[in-house]
């Protein structure tokens, strides 16, 4: 009974996150368009896209792994969601976060990526492989500042449990990691830019050279699944950063607000800066952000 109730709340949370993810991406795209003096899409356009894709009946497959790729991908996204505590202080909205801590989430992120890579790989399209190779390469550099930041806050709070980290930040903005450990926050937020795949780190999908990157070969239901995943993933990653650095959320309203702001940060930067090439982005990421991350740790050791 307990379990059924838990699963019920988990599914409910997933539903909320998915919808918020779709709406958020619509809003963001609208904002981008407006800033670019265009009218842009409808706010509900992502919903339309999703339904359209799920309805397409002419689908092709290149093989088993091509088929399984999206499943892996979506599992990855939902998995992160499952291991993430959403609302501070609420046992029911903490999902399955009792099975693992921050490290689990950090590593489970790879699960989806791997599935994507393999699925796209079997598609046999070189663009997919190129996209993946770029994505992975850049990813290694993106992870480094984040790792430094994670270690820094782990030292700071002496825990790896997300719930406990959130708990430690309660009681006002002065307790947020943003304030108590600004360097770690900065390093992590730079890393977040890369994780979101927006400009200047958008070379994975690079529309000019590689039409939409790894998912090149996917359409129909497969593409729908990937889009579903993206909606969930964007929100849940923002939630992760929110939990770690911005005091978490005590209710759904705060969660939605904070996740929007965190996500918007990445879009905002993307609008201002041009795109990096991979061999430019990696050294860049390994210099300043890593330095900041090191400072974040060094300060705590001292």
């Amino acid at each position, binding site marked *: 009974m307990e379990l059924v109730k838990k699963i019920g709340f988990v599914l409910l949370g997933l539903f909320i996150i998915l919808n918020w993810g779709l709406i958020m991406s619509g809003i963001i795209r609208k904002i981008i368009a407006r800033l670019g003096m265009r009218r842009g899409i409808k706010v509900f356009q992502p919903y339309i896209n999703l339904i359209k894709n799920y309805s397409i009946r002419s689908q092709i497959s290149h093989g088993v*792994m091509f088929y399984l790729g999206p499943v892996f991908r979506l599992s990855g996204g939902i998995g992160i969601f499952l291991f993430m505590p959403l609302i501070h202080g609420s046992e029911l909205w903490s999902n399955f976060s009792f099975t693992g801590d921050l*490290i689990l989430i950090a*590593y489970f992120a790879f699960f989806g990526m*791997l599935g994507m890579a393999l699925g796209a790989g079997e598609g046999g*399209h070189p663009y997919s492989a190129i996209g993946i190779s770029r994505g992975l390469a850049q990813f*290694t550099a993106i992870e*480094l500042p984040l790792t430094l930041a994670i270690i820094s806050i782990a030292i700071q709070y002496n825990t790896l449990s997300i719930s406990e980290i959130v708990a430690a930040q309660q009681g006002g903005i002065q307790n947020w990691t943003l304030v108590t450990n600004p360097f770690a926050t900065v390093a992590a937020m730079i890393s977040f830019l890369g994780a979101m795949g927006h400009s200047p780190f958008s070379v994975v999908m690079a529309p000019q050279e590689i039409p939409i990157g790894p998912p090149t070969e996917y359409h129909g239901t497969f593409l729908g699944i990937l889009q579903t995943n993206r909606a969930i993933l964007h929100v849940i990653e923002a939630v992760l950063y929110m939990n770690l650095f911005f005091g978490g959320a005590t209710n759904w309203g705060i969660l939605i607000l904070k996740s929007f702001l965190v996500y918007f940060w990445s879009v905002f930067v993307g609008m201002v800066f041009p795109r990096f090439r991979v061999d430019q982005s990696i050294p860049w990421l390994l210099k300043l952000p890593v330095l900041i991350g090191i400072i974040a740790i060094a300060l705590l050791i001292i």
Partner: protein
Amino acid sequence: MVSPIYIIAILLGMAFMLGLLSKSGTRIAGILTSVSLALPVYISISWFIQILSGNADAITIFTAGSVPPFSINLVMGLEEAFFTSAINILGLLGFIYLSADLKKQGVRAMALYLVLIMGLNVVVMTRDIFNLFVFMEIVTIAVAGLIYLKNDNQSKEAGFKYLVAVGIISLFFLIGIGFFYFYGGTLNIDGFIAANSVVVKGATIAIFFIIISIILELKPFPANGWALDVYQAATPGVSALISSGTATASIFVLYKLLPLGSEIWLQILTVVGAVTFLGSNFLGISQKNTNRLLGYSSIGQVGLLMMVIGFMPQLGSAFKMIFFSVFISHFLAKAGLFWLSGIVKKESITDWGILRGSNIALFLFGIFLFALVGFPPFPSFYGKWQMVMELAGTGRFIWIVIILLGSFFEGLYLFRWLGYAIKGEKSNEEKLQIPWDKIVPPFIFGISLFIAAYYANSMSVYGNTINLIPLVFILLLFVIDFLPAYIKNTITIGAMVYYAVNLYPSISDDTLRVVFAAIFLIGGILTMIAGYSVKGKRKGFFPFAVMMYFGLIGLIEAENLFQFFFAWELMTLGSYILIIRGKFSMKHAFNYMLFSLGGAYLIFLGIAMSSFGNTSLDIGIIGLSTMPGWSYTLLAIGFLTKTAALGLHIWLPGAHAEAESDVSPMVSGILLKGGVFGLIVLFLAMGGEQAASHPLLYSLGWLGAITALGGNLLAVFQEDAKRLLAYSSVANLGYILFALAFMTNIGWLSALTYSINHFLFKTLLFLAIGGVVLRVKTHNMYEMGGLIKQMPWSFIAVLIGIITLAGIPPLSGYAGKWLFYNAVITKGWYFQGVLVFFAGTIAFLYCFKLIYSVFLGQPKDRFRKVKEAPIWYLIPQFILIIGIMIFSARPDLVLKPIGALLTQSSYFPSDSLSWENVTASTNLGYWSGYKIMLVIGVMFAVLLVWLMYMSRKTQKVKQFNIVYAGERPFTPETTHFSHNMFSHYYKALGFLSAPLATRFWNITNDITHRIADGSKRLYTGNGQTYLAVIMAYIIIIYLIMF
């Protein structure tokens, strides 16, 4: 008992008698000669046995019906009986070997031969110094005659140089004898010693000339150019006699005459021996001429013997055993090698591939080489061990370094040679001709080596702690080598299962050992299963595979350092042969051996230093070392060569990649854990947690981190699938080193988790990729592609493997990562930790490259018909997958007992990981492998079902049905994106992968070779210069002495 005087009578009488035979009577002469050579063998051996067993006492043979010192007397004691036996056996076998050449020259040559053997016998037995001189001259002249047997320009030159060099030496000897008599009033050695006449300075110098002459006869470096020329120019059969026969006699003469001089001679001898051993072997490394190389080695070995004699007082009661083992190895092996060289008839060692034409010859060759380098179970291993230990007991570490360095150089050139023999080019037209009379002598000597090994073992202090049964089993495998592979495979697996079952009870209370034993034995069995796919006989594979596994198990079973080192060497040897079996692995196997040998000697030195001041050899004494800094560092570096820490890793990629398909998993997934186990032993001995702040550990931590990064980075840029995996192994061993260096409870847990994981996934991956390689016949990933359709099972195996490798939940790789984070933060090594995590993300790059390039992407036309990997490869893979699954779902099954062990042991009392059912938690975080597995599994299944429903009408399309904007390339080769996949990454971080280590070692190698090559020019080939060097040598020794 026949009086030894008859040795002289028979040999000399027959020599004179041969003159009566007509020149055409070579056949009869041959028979007569053999018979008269056989009789002394009987005489001396019967004396040896009788004296040894206590049935007879040493006897003195008087001549002329008078007693010494008035007449010449001979002595037949234990030593004399031993040495004459050796010489006479060599004489008989050498004659059999040389008989064809001798017959060509007629009966006179046989007489010459008889006289030589007679001379050697008397040289050993006589106790009169002038008599010694006369018979040494006989030997000299006879040798000079035998050198001429070959009758070409070179042998003439060499003979002349020999004659003048030995001539001048004997002149000094004679001067010495003159004054010896003048001051001592006697010519009898014992009489002189008893009279103790060495009080006058003149007498001292007289003795100086006598002893220095004997030393010069032993060809000390560098006054030995003439000897090298002789070794090179003479017929190998004659060189065998010189190397094993005359050197034997001379070394005994030295032993006999030493009491004449003062104590200082021992020190001089030590120095001379050390210089010779080191110098000669060093110059040998750039030598390519077979016989000359053997010459260098011969001289080196004699140098070692001189050192042994020089250390007589320090070695004490162990002296006999040490001398025996070093001597007998040299004696048997060197004669055997010269004989083989005569069969092969190749001037350059690079042409020795022809030896593969004969199994028996190759087998003997290997045995001789191993015996020379001092691998177990051959006698010199025991000898060197005992010697080093005795020297360590008195703190003579410089000398140990010299011995080990010399041995290292020797190993270097001998193994290069072995490499050429096993893998060198070989033209098909040439066939190795092996007449029976040429192979019987080396064969007998080869067998004798084993007998000698048995005796050395029983004489050695710790010899009885060695379990010889597996060695016998290995030997048995050699004997049944003619059987088909699958039978031998079954026998081997059976033996390993049997061993495992028997082993378990004895170590079951030590989980740590159980874990490693499981890795070694289960891993061994699994990889052997893959061996069923090999058709034919697979000659020479099984003995060495068993040897390697036995060595690994021996590490676990070892109770003292001797057993440990024994096992270590055995493992090295077995794995070397396994590695060199690969098609292109000559160079790599050589590198492997180079590093292994260097590493082994460092370990040896470390052990020696640890034993200083300790009475036992229990493994724990490492921690009691009086020079902890040195012994820890040396041992650590030694073990690190096996775990291929960055800088010492350059042997690994080639060795692992070029090995046979089922050998790669053995050497990568399993063998490397031997090094890890060594480190564990070391770190435990250091004191576990108490030593956590040891500076060595700090640097090892950094080293581990850098290794992890470097290994992974290098793996990313590989195009060769097996090389990629090999570099990945380097990195993984870096993780393990790093985690071990924490010296905390959780750090060790993480390291052990890593070790188990690495065993599981690397064996799995190598097996899977090995199976693929077996089918597609290439290592290059860009040539493959799309193989998922042909090899789905292999694909699954690789997929599971890389998920584990990358540490992605829910598989067990994550367990290691999670423990790792906790350990890093607990320990406070943040920056090293970050490096390692960075390395971890880099691993994704090559994981993707591996699975994508091989199994996904565009299938190539020529591989459309390849089959799935052999079933024998898949079976162990799936067993391993099951293992991974179990370990992933229930890590507590393994980690709990290990944790308990670590906590309970005195080493890591501070418990940091607590278990609550299946959930592990530290004070930082928590993790429940079981629940994660469950959550992800359910979710994955739900999603899959959902997708299957949603896309139920999906249709499969052909290969090139892909979305392209414009024209598209039609060949899979151009469409498959694999080659240089991470070029952008290379642009960004490629500078980190600069082959610095390779460059460093290449330069080192180059410089060493250049120095060796340059120093070799000391031997100008000018006989007169050699004479000048001899004189200068006398002067230098004189100046050192007085």
